[in-house]
């Protein structure tokens, strides 16, 4: 086992973990978005509520969700550790420091962007995830099933302008984070080649624009309607 610990605690190993957890979280973003889009369905929240019930009761989904919690925690804690080590490696900084050609602003500010996303995540979990699991949510009955009316909680939150703005800011930070993170994850895995790297970059940029925009669109549309 010592070889494994040695590998994963090296700078390269830590980056490997950041890359793999990041890619897993990217997949999660797609799944979560597919669920969220049901909020826009004009059925008073029935599809969304039944989906929410399924996501919190299906054994396979529940198991995956524990892996997801672990992934979030590892990605966040390891990034904090790496950031501290990286700052230490620089030591005293430069008086004059300019951005090198071709270096994106996102890539130099992943820690700040990640921190904004983390704040968003904590508030988001408190408002919806905690409420769904342990909060006193009113029940709603559709034909033969009775489920928690999470749609009502979401619709109430998205009726508040400050919350919608908070959500949009969170998604902008997520977009910039993904703009660098998506392609960076592949580079860390050692996947960099003239043949497919341009494609990874294009897909990454598309993902970082479209996915956060769709997320942000939901509260915006619900607020306006």
């Amino acid at each position, binding site marked *: 086992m010592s*070889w494994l610990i*040695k*590998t994963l605690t*090296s*700078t*390269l*190993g*830590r*980056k*490997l973990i950041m890359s793999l957890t990041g890619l897993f979280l990217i997949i999660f973003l797609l799944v979560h978005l597919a669920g969220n889009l049901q909020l826009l369905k004009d059925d008073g929240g029935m599809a969304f509520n039944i989906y929410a019930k399924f996501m919190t009761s299906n054994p396979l989904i529940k198991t995956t969700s524990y892996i997801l919690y672990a992934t979030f925690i590892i990605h966040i804690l390891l990034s904090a550790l*790496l950031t501290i*080590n*990286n700052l*230490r*490696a*620089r*030591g*005293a*900084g*430069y*008086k*004059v*420091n*300019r951005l*090198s*050609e*071709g*270096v*994106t602003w996102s*890539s*130099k500010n*992943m820690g700040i962007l990640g921190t904004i996303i983390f704040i968003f995540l904590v508030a988001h979990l408190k408002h919806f995830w905690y409420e769904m699991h342990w909060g006193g949510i009113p029940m709603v009955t559709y034909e033969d099933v009775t489920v928690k009316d999470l749609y009502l909680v979401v619709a109430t939150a998205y009726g508040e302008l400050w919350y919608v703005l908070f959500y949009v800011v969170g998604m902008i930070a997520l977009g910039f984070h993904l703009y*660098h993170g998506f*392609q*960076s994850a592949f*580079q*860390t*895995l*050692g*996947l*960099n*080649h003239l043949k497919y790297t341009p494609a990874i970059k294009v897909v990454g940029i598309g993902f970082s624009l479209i996915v956060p925009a769709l997320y942000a669109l939901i509260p915006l549309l619900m607020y306006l309607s």
Partner: protein
Amino acid sequence: MKLTLKIWRQKSAGTQGKFIKYEIDNISEDTSFLEMLDQLNVELEEKGEEPVHFDHDCREGICGTCSLYINGHPHGPHQTTTCQLHMRSFKDGDTITIEPWRAKAFPIIKDLVVDRSAFDRIIQSGGYISVNTGGTPDANEIPIPKDVASEAMDAASCIGCGACVAACKNASAMLFVSAKVAHLGKLPQGEVERHARVQRMVAQMDEEGFGACTNTGACAAECPKEISLTNIALMNRHYFNASFSH
């Protein structure tokens, strides 16, 4: 040309340093940056002041000895070594800030001179090929495809100046280490040792206190020898391959 220079002056490793302002006149735009500093030092010596210490050797862009963080870029505004930088890249009346490389693994010795022996220790840990010496082998004994030879040569053009470490916001040495790993690992003579080599060199790199790579690409953008980021991807592949399957 008339210039204002803000130069980092530090007496020794353990002492506090600070920026000192110098005014310099009569600089020809054909002067190289290091010759401009020579001119300043002559003036300082004439006044009985201590000259500014900076690293330099070949002055033709091949040894990697010159350093200097000039106006926010390693080796100044162009992708060259400092010795190949000329004063025509600046305007009359400019203020130029000159700083040493900043990295915990590159401690300052004096003024603008830093100790880059961490790179030497990384090379000693694995940047070589273990073959017994003997008679000169025939040039065509080991056939090497042209594209492989070219890629190895591109990686081998790294001069170990440390601009990658200086430019990286994490003071990471991965571009340097990966250039050595790629240069030796791509050729058949070095390929046989590639697993042990990459593990030893990465371990030494971490031991020296360099940061981790966050793939900003600043290193490759500032490298005077245009070493590519694909080398870092290759090093990662070799390292994970070596760790998990050898």
